[in-house]
């Protein structure tokens, strides 16, 4: 008998087991992440040096990093970065809110949804790049045309998910709330919104990236400042290092923004049964 006891590993007999693996895993994750990064960067660097990867298209990680450091050292990047971030943030907020509100509206009012269904689908399929002149016409050359650009990307993503999220709400929970006296507004506030939050955050994770893309592409098509402008300029002079450094800076920013989104998500979805998993902070 005691033999079988011995085969039970130590971890099983002390402390709440569910918590253990997580604690143990964190450093492993970080190590693997770093390993992946090192592997990719080093491989790239070596390939570039060996001429396997064409520097005309890919630059070298070392060059990219030194250019980035340069930008921050001279401070020249700040004004560009700031503009791009403001544009992306505005696009995220405006597009997100619009998507949220219209998603709710259409999910709740069947008739409007039925009527506007084809129109929204069509608008979603319009190539935004082609519309750049119209954005310039309507919103000028300043930040607003780029914001509009980002909004057209973010809106649809948030809209479709919000719409579906609201419609997925448990019927019994809604009925219960209504029987307890919830008016439509209260229903939205206390039932539909919290219930659709997982959906909304899933769309926000996609949107953070798209908002930045929108801002950059907008700048790329016409601007006098911003990271997109920097990239476009570098591309015009075949300065691949500049192009990649620009994208590198954007990536870093996205990670920072995403950490913030995760924080908010984790807070708002704290009522969820924890699932030991990662994407979208709500589940951590």
């Amino acid at each position, binding site marked *: 008998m005691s033999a079988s006891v011995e085969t039970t590993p130590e971890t099983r007999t002390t402390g709440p087991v569910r918590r253990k693996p997580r604690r143990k895993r964190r450093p492993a994750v970080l190590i693997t992440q770093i390993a992946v990064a090192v592997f990719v960067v080093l491989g790239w660097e070596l390939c570039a040096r060996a001429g396997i990867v064409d520097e005309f*298209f890919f630059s070298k990680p070392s060059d990219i990093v030194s250019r980035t450091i340069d930008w921050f050292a001279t401070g020249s990047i700040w004004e560009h970065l700031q503009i791009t971030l403001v544009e992306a943030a505005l696009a995220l907020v405006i597009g997100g809110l619009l998507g949220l509100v219209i998603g709710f509206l259409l999910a709740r009012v069947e008739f409007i949804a039925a009527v506007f269904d084809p129109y929204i689908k069509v608008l979603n399929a319009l190539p935004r790049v082609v519309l750049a002149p119209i954005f310039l016409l309507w919103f000028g050359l300043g930040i607003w045309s780029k914001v509009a650009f980002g909004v057209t990307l973010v809106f649809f993503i948030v809209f479709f998910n919000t719409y579906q999220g609201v419609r997925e709400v448990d019927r019994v929970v809604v009925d219960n709330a209504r029987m307890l006296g919830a008016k439509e507004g209260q229903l939205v506030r206390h039932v539909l919104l919290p219930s659709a939050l997982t959906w909304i955050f899933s769309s926000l994770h996609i949107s953070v990236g798209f908002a930045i893309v929108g801002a950059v592409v907008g700048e790329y098509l016409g601007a*006098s400042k911003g990271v997109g402008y920097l990239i476009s300029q570098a591309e*015009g*002079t*075949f300065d691949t290092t500049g192009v990649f450094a620009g994208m590198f800076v954007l990536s870093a920013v996205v990670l920072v923004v995403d950490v913030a989104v995760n924080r908010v998500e984790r807070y708002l979805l704290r009522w969820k049964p924890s699932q030991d998993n990662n994407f979208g902070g709500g589940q951590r």
Partner: protein
Amino acid sequence: KPGERSEGGQLTIGVGGQPLLVYLPTTLAQRLGYYEDEGLNVTLEDLQGGSKALQALQGGSVDVVSGYYDHAIQMAAKDRDVQSFVSMLRYPSLVIAVSPKASKPIESIADLAGANVGVTAPGSSTDFFLKYLLGKEGLPADSATVQAVGGDSSAVAAMEQGRVDAAVMLDPAFSLLQQRVGADEVQVLTDTRTAEGVQEDFGVSTYPAAVLYSTGQWLENNDDNARKLAKAIVRTLEWIDQHSAEEIAAEMPEEYAQGNRDVYVESIAKVKEAYSKDGTLEADGAEAVREVLAQFIPEVERADIDVSTTFSNDYLPSETS
């Protein structure tokens, strides 16, 4: 793969913006059937800008680029062997125009200091042209705010609405602007569609702009194909010289005139003079290009470029030279 021999005359030419008039001979040659006459089977790929076309060349997706000569110099600075082998446009055909709604009176290049000036894209030829002219006036390159506005409707819109005070423009956008707001309303600061303009701005008689270029390796492997291409283009240039703008427009794809036929014809007429007559690229013009670029691209300035390696007139049909 880049620079391989194009078997059976199968060629892809990347065009840095097919509808742009500066690249018109590339398309016209196909319409006139001159490539076929030479036994070439040419596919034209529209690549929205010369730098994209150059990248496509470097990546091996196209064999030849119909783009700006500037890029050959820039590549030389990067130790990339790129050679122009036939010139299509001998004047850059850039116009600096003042918006009718400019925020301040602009009478000369010097007045551009402190203004918001549109260029097609940062780091493009239009950008350098502006900076070069500012430099000639003794102003620092960044004395004007450079605003990217693209080359088509957006540029027209920006000018028309006064979102920029002035802009470096190309045809047909410039002609269109003139037509929309009235030719008198648009003040022209300099116009390099004419020999005088080029002389005045650059001090040379020709300033190579649109050319066909490719990698040295491709040229080496495709000696005959390059000759045939050059010949087709030269024939086209001659055809252009002998025909009116109306006739040229009629040969171009129908869609190109669909926007506004009059403007299209008119802009062809304006730019017609700028087309090269025989495809040759003059050495002094080439040097002028290098000098301009050297002022703004440190890489070009640093590199010791021998311009004669960046172009060659050897592929041109001998009877015309």
